[in-house]
């Protein structure tokens, strides 16, 4: 079983899980064509 310390860590991690880093966080700001990840249909070109 998880120790208390690890339970507390899990709770913090769980909160962070709901606002994960975004790819644009690690890139220079693109004002004209900003990156906007979107879940496209699987039959579209994926890469």
């Amino acid at each position, binding site marked *: 079983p998880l120790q208390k310390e690890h339970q507390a860590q899990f709770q913090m991690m769980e909160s962070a899980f709901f606002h*994960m*880093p975004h*790819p644009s966080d*690690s*890139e*220079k700001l693109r*004002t*004209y*064509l900003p*990156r*906007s*990840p*979107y*879940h*496209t*249909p699987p*039959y*579209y*070109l*994926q*890469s």
Partner: protein
Amino acid sequence: MVNDQFGIVGLLTFIRAAETDPNLVSLALGQDLTALGLNLNSPDNLYPTFGGPWAEQPCRPQDIDFHVPPEYLVNSAIRDKLAGVKFTRYKDDLLFFMFYNNCGDVFQVLAAVELYNREWRYHTEEKVWITQVPGMVLLEKTSTYERGTYYFFDVHNWRKVAKEFHLDYSKLEGRPVIQQSMH
């Protein structure tokens, strides 16, 4: 036999549990690591285009910044003069460019919406854009399919190619939809 978790029976118990609990599978049997979006057979290094721990694909060319002389960074001087991004203003050529170079991005869908508005249709099986050739008479037409000559957009040669084709209506994508929050 060893009758605790450290023998064969222990392994078997874990495997059996993993059959019903998907959360256990990832450790019991591992995952298919070739399905994580990395080209593990690439002769080139992966790290220069690594999109990050949760990226399903490598970086696109436009995602990779290169250091350029500051004089090249003219955005702050001209950005107020640039027209806003408006897909209705662009030619088909640019729409296809946006579609094929913005995979997994809202711009791909926006381009698809505008192409649809211009009577291009995306064939979900062939994975190509097609449209009717103006003035061409259909050879055959039923409630479920038609046959005739169509323009296909050939992405490899970057041009429209006319081809005779049996078009099954069920294989065509309907009007692409964008979530309200992305507008």
